[in-house]
Structures are given as structure tokens and as C-alpha cells.
């Protein structure tokens, strides 16, 4: 089964409804750009990626979670480029038979992505008018 993993330019658009046959628990986790980054007011985050390596690693991680946690389906989307405050940079969706494995897989996926997958953010600090 192929796992939809997409690295897209610019912020993610709203998600269309999604599920998988047999799933009893459908989890969606979205990362949204917060108005401050390390104490500074920002306008946006500028995301960069080592795209082919990030793509492969996201696919491998999603597949590992699918098998390890016995999930029904996984989708992953990550933005590159400018993502303004309040916009969505990341979306992980997991369909599983029950909630426990879905929540565990979400926590593990995100934690490992943040440790290892070559995705980068640079804050675009807000210019103060004087």
C-alpha cells in the first residue's frame, strides 16, 4: 500500500474529509504557526527541506508507524516556503481500529520527525513600525 506523503509549497489548505475502511478512530494533527517564536513576534515561518531525503524519510517513518502500531492508513503533508501566523505547516492523519494505537503513533511520528527529518524553519521576525 502506498502512503500519501506530500511536501507542498506554501501553507497547507484545509483538509477534505478523510477516513479508511474499518477504522474506528480517525486522528488529525495539524501544526499551526504561532505568533511568537522564542519570545519574538513573528509574521511567518519560512520552511526549508532537503526535499528528496525528507520525502523518503517521511514515507519510511509513516510505513514504520503503520506496521508497528497496526494502523489502517496514514497521510502526511508538510509545507515548505512561507507559512504565515495562523496557517498550517504540517498535517498528520491516522486512521486506526481503536484510539490507543492512533494516539501512540501520532506522538511517536511527530517526535521522530522533529528529531531526524531534514525539515527546517526560519522565523520571519515582525518588522516594528516606529
Amino acid at each position, binding site marked *: 500500500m502506498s502512503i500519501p506523503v506530500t511536501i507542498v509549497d506554501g501553507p497547507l489548505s484545509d483538509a477534505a474529509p478523510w477516513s479508511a475502511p474499518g477504522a474506528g478512530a480517525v486522528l488529525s494533527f495539524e*501544526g499551526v504557526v504561532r505568533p511568537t517564536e522564542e519570545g519574538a513576534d513573528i509574521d511567518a515561518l519560512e*520552511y*526549508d*527541506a*532537503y526535499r*528528496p*531525503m*525528507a520525502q*523518503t524519510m517521511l514515507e519510511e517513518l509513516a510505513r514504520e508507524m503503520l506496521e508497528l502500531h497496526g494502523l489502517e492508513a496514514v497521510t502526511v503533508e*508538510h509545507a515548505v516556503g512561507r507559512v504565515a501566523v495562523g496557517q498550517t*505547516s*504540517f498535517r498528520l492523519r491516522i486512521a486506526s481500529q481503536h484510539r490507543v494505537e492512533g494516539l501512540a503513533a501520532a506522538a511517536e511520528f*511527530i517526535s521522530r*520527525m*522533529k*528529531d*531526524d*527529518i*531534514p*525539515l*527546517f*524553519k*526560519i522565523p520571519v521576525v515582525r518588522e516594528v513600525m516606529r
Partner: protein
Amino acid sequence: MTYRVMLFGAEAAAAGERSLDLEIPEGSVTADELKLHLSEAYPGLSGVPSCRVAVNQKFVGGDEIVTSDDEIALVGPVSGG
């Protein structure tokens, strides 16, 4: 030999480039040696010691061999999500 090293995120911003060319006499070096050469050639690139090296899209340990034919990337602290 010319080693082309790709940069991303903060390192690309610091260098003002998406890749840097590094002239090294040897045809192969370890990943750690590559980082030393890079720091020497581009002293403005301050974060190199804390970066990882990816060779052909896989992270490698500091002792692993890199050749000028490889796809080489300097990977700073990652921050996806």
C-alpha cells in the same frame, strides 16, 4: 577534487547559497574531515560542528567515507512540524 555540499535552512541563509564547493586534494575523506574542511574554507558558517552530514540522502557517522562523487548535504538542527 571538488566536493559539492548542499545547505538548508539556517546554514543556507548564513552562506547565502544552497550549496558550496569545497576543494580537497583527497578523493575521499571522512564526514568529520569534510566538516573540518568546510569550517576552514567558510569560517562564516559557524554552526558546522553541530550539523550532521548526509551522504546520498542518508545520515552518516563521523567516521564514514565521503567521496566527491557522492550527493553530500550538511544538515543543521531540524525543526519540522
